[in-house]
């Protein structure tokens, strides 16, 4: 889609299937899923936040008008709750912001909290584990929560914050502890994008994972873009779960991986 944007497409969206090989099946995730993606030109992640608020309100009003929302318990009115990653770690896990930028201290803090920290345990694994165990269940309890400004290394396709380049302009929004979308102020600097892809590949090699082929066409396309852009991918199946009140994503799919491959649990 960025290649289309580079050709001057203007705002674009698509609804399509995404397939992620070897990803686990769970009550919230099917390896093949439907995503809604859109990009806005002359825009950043704040504009995408507004889009999300309007989109969910639109779906809500439509379904409510058809009297299809019997037990919907979330308040979708604007503005949504917004909390930065650093604030969320402080508020829900009692972790000071400074620790997010000091891998050694972060690891020893995690160890003190009772998490298993071994020599091969990465910062990212512990970050995710604490996010899942201590933070996510607090997000989107009664109204949607936007979790924004991820650590720069956690957003390979997002623009760094000009006011604090330790963070990148990325957000995810949550309802009922479930992540529904992931958005960026898109990185449109082709040189920086190339450098980040190369860094990512070095990290993958260290983890024993295969290198990703660098998309040269994308790098070339980015070099033609001279506007700001915001973009997002929203999990459509999870939206269906939300509005239909289903607990398991399988109930929203005609052919779930669990059904098709007769997986247990």
């Amino acid at each position: 889609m960025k290649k289309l944007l580079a050709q001057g497409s203007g705002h674009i969206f698509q609804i399509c299937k995404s397939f992620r090989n070897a990803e686990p099946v769970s009550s919230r995730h099917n390896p093949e899923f439907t995503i809604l993606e859109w990009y806005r030109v002359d825009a950043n992640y704040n504009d995408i936040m507004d889009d999300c608020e309007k989109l969910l309100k639109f779906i809500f009003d439509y379904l409510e008008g058809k009297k299809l929302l019997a037990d919907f318990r979330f308040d979708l009115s604007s503005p949504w709750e917004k909390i930065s990653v650093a604030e969320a770690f402080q508020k829900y896990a009692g972790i000071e912001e400074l620790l997010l930028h000091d891998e050694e201290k972060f690891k020893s803090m995690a160890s003190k909290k009772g998490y298993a920290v071994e020599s091969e345990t990465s910062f990212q694994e512990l970050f995710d584990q604490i996010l899942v165990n201590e933070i996510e269940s607090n997000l989107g309890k009664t109204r949607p929560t936007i979790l924004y400004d991820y650590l720069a290394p956690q957003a390979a396709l997002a623009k760094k914050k000009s006011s604090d380049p330790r963070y990148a302009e990325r957000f995810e929004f949550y309802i009922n502890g479930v992540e529904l979308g992931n958005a960026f102020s898109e990185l449109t600097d082709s040189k920086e994008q190339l450098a980040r892809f190369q860094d990512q590949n070095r990290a993958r090699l260290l983890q024993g994972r295969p290198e990703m082929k660098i998309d040269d066409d994308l790098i070339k396309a980015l070099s033609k873009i001279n506007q700001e852009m915001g973009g997002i991918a929203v999990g459509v199946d999870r939206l269906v779960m939300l509005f239909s009140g289903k607990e398991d994503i399988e109930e929203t799919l005609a052919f779930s991986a669990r059904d098709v491959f007769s997986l247990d649990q």
Partner: protein
Amino acid sequence: MATIKAGSIRKGMYILFKNAPYLVTKTDFLSPGKGSALMRVKLKSVISSGTTDFSFKSNESVEEVEVSSLQMQYLYLDGDELVFMNSDTFEQLSVPIDLVGEQHKLLIEEQQIYVLMYDEKPIGVRLPDKMKLKVALAEDADGGNTVGQARKTVELETGLKILAPLFVKTGDTLIIDVATMSYLSRG
């Protein structure tokens, strides 16, 4: 005790969590970020019967613990403890009611029941999915003015009161669903 990777935790296993034994009641794989794989498990404490959720890194080590089961005879309720006896050695063992839950009201005296043991201490009992109990008292009911499925309260031989269809009589044997403690059919 055996060390396993958290990614191979399965429902029904017992594991050590914060140095205490827990029963795994649900598992879910998660891959939230870039490359991290987590295993979310729902745990039921076998000591306090409380439940908790925790997400392990799939590759971290977890201790699976042996929980053994011992067939024993249920004797009687003593305050807030259930007293069992080993039919071979006549040794007696008390199990706190909290570890068994409401279901202790289904236990019939002299019934053979598996008691779960960890570290030589009782941590619960394993009840069958269905149990047969006799009706101690069922009053005749007229279903004249009820709508839909008519039910009445009957008292079982253990003193437990449940809802059953109107045709159930004193002395009938009923099949009870243990999880919901409700009437399934006449036995």
